[in-house]
């Protein structure tokens, strides 16, 4: 099987690295590609932001063409699928039949294999947990070439969930869908004036089915943390299908597009869409779950140099202090960022390296500049001091020591790796940077 030498990045387009990229069209080819490679990693849709789905000088095996639905049981809602199936595909195929995935990330382009590897969460984490809480089993191709059916509860299950592709390649998975009627949510939007109000509003919204906050990260002083709160409940309504309008970003945006005045204007306009008294309307589930997907390659607006996404979770008790400090640091740095997202998270994920833990999670983008490193290091420190953690799906710069402190089950994870892949054939740029395999970390 032929490989293509490609220089790739994550969704943030920084950093990039060069690998031999295989794109198997069938399982037998995937098995061959993995067997032949001394250093290998699965890659789905490349929607993780940093260096997690990269493998400098090694092999990457794309799962995008292994995107078949293998079975569905309409009595239990159990869907069996290949790893390259995407969230948008499942929504388009099953919602008309009255089924939806219980948990979905903010982009429908992510693959189900990638969703296990990061144990992704949605806007309903308090109520429904993470993606893997609904996964019953998966088939894992191990470094030895063996394919193992891994069920919930196994140590290998807990290592693979959130395991960044380092235990092997998920080649099939079984996930339980929710019975639903309709294709719309009742969406309530309200303006929020500052961070304190935001935290209490989100706290109260834990009881609603979905909730997410959008913060204007450039606001300072008394307006620090102002933004919009969206809460939503599923409905029985079926809205007529909308013609999908897909826009593309035709070129990498020039730097000034992201200067502070431009971003400030955008953030203001975004807030003003919603009247002071708030508003309520029916919204298609697809649009509510995947607001950014209408512009397929929006990451190009950050230009050639790429960008970072910072995402942390901090415990409830620490949230007011830690988030204030973070938003202040960001505003002081004038690091223009389009909307920042603030959400609540519920119970811990099952994975040894699952990101979710109870608390508030803040996510925001920064264009890659010479000074970004300092700001990110400061945010990393604030997260650690608050007893929080960073989301590995988004990270490209954190230090090995911080990650080890944030993820106390890392040694258990490493023990599983030592057992299933003693030679360390499954690896990535992130794994090397963070020294996940033990030994020397590469900074």
């Amino acid at each position: 099987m032929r490989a293509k030498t490609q220089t790739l990045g994550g969704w943030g387009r920084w950093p990039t690295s060069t690998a031999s990229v295989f794109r198997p069209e069938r399982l037998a080819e995937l098995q061959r590609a993995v067997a032949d490679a001394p250093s290998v990693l699965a890659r789905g849709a490349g929607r993780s932001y940093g260096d997690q789905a990269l493998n400098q000088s090694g092999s990457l095996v794309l799962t995008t063409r292994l995107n078949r639905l293998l079975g569905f049981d309409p009595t239990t809602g159990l869907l069996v699928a290949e790893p390259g199936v995407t969230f948008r595909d499942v929504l388009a195929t099953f919602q008309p039949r009255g089924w939806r995935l219980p948990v979905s990330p903010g982009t429908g382009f992510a693959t189900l294999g990638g969703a296990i590897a990061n144990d992704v969460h949605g806007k309903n984490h308090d109520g429904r947990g993470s993606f893997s809480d609904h996964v019953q089993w998966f088939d894992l191709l191990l470094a030895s070439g063996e394919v193992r059916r891994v069920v919930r509860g196994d140590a290998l299950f807990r290592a693979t969930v959130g395991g960044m592709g380092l235990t092997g390649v998920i080649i099939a998975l079984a996930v339980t869908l929710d019975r639903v009627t309709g294709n719309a949510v009742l969406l309530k939007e309200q303006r929020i004036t500052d961070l304190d109000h935001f935290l209490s509003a989100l706290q109260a919204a834990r009881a609603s089915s979905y909730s997410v906050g959008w913060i204007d990260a450039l606001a300072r002083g008394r307006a620090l943390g102002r933004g919009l709160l969206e809460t939503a409940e599923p409905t029985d309504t079926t809205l007529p299908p909308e013609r999908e309008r897909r826009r593309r970003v035709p070129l990498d945006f020039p730097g000034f597009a992201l200067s502070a005045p431009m971003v400030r204007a955008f953030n203001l306009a975004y807030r003003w869409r919603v009247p002071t008294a708030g508003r309520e309307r029916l919204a298609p589930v697809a649009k509510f779950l995947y607001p950014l997907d209408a512009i397929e390659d929006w990451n190009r607006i950050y230009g050639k140099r790429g960008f970072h996404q910072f995402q942390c979770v901090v415990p409830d008790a620490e949230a007011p202090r830690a988030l204030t400090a973070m938003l202040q640091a960001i505003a002081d740095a004038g690091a223009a960022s389009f909307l920042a997202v603030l959400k609540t998270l519920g119970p811990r994920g099952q994975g040894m390296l699952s990101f979710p833990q109870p608390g508030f999670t803040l996510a925001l983008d920064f264009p890659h500049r010479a000074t970004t490193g300092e700001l990110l290091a400061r945010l990393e420190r604030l997260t650690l001091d608050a007893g929080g953690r960073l989301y590995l799906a988004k990270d490209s710069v954190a230090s090995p020591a911080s990650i080890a402190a944030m993820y106390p089950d890392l040694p258990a994870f490493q023990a599983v790796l030592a057992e299933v892949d003693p030679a360390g054939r499954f690896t990535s740029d992130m794994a090397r940077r963070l020294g996940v395999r033990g030994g020397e970390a590469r900074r």
Partner: protein
Amino acid sequence: MSAVRDLQGRLWAIVGGSSPLARAFAHRVAARGASVLLVGRDLDDLARTAADVSLRHQVEVLVHGCDLGDPDQVGLLARRLQSEAEAGRLDLLLAAAIMPSQAAMEADPALVPPLWQVNVTAPIDLLLRLAPAWQRAGRGTVVVVGSVAGDRGRLSNHLYGASKAALATFTAGFRNRMARAGVHVLTVKPGFLDTGMTWGLPGIFLPGQPDPVAGTILAAALNRKDVLYVPGFWWLILTILKHIPEPIFKRLKI
């Protein structure tokens, strides 16, 4: 699921069912209500595609194992399909082919007969065996996937190209023969397609994606078009290529 189920009652046999193009084509016909028979060697892969197609489009999808390298198996396949053709419900897509590298075949000419068997002999054998049944039924659609590589023998790819040229010449005559009986035959000449056949090869530009290309092919077949270049701009490229005088062409390293 598409609302128009205008192919209900048809059976599309798809030879080379593990090819991405064939897979996309299976979805296209199934979305319009046709049953599908996937033919090929990798039965595990065909079973997965069968599950996928039937789950998404709620049609019957069957699998038939056949190695085109083995004439006996081609005969068995023909027998399997004859009654369907006779009943007037068989349509056929021939997408199977192999493309060993030109250099490998030049170094080892023993690779050429198997190429010829899969790309030329087996398809012709199958079509000749099915022709009488189709003629009696008076209906059916046949799609033969050739290649722009068959339009002119180039330095880099003339052994594979020769096989596609032979297939195209046969198909043109076969179209004439079948047209008299009301059976339609389409020759498809793809340029580059974004599949395993081209992945990682140097010099591939603007490869067509399997799904839109499959849609174009199905539309052309149902509109009774005779020859289709796809993506469409390849018609222009080949028109130019075919008109370069041989004294110049023989110096070109393409």
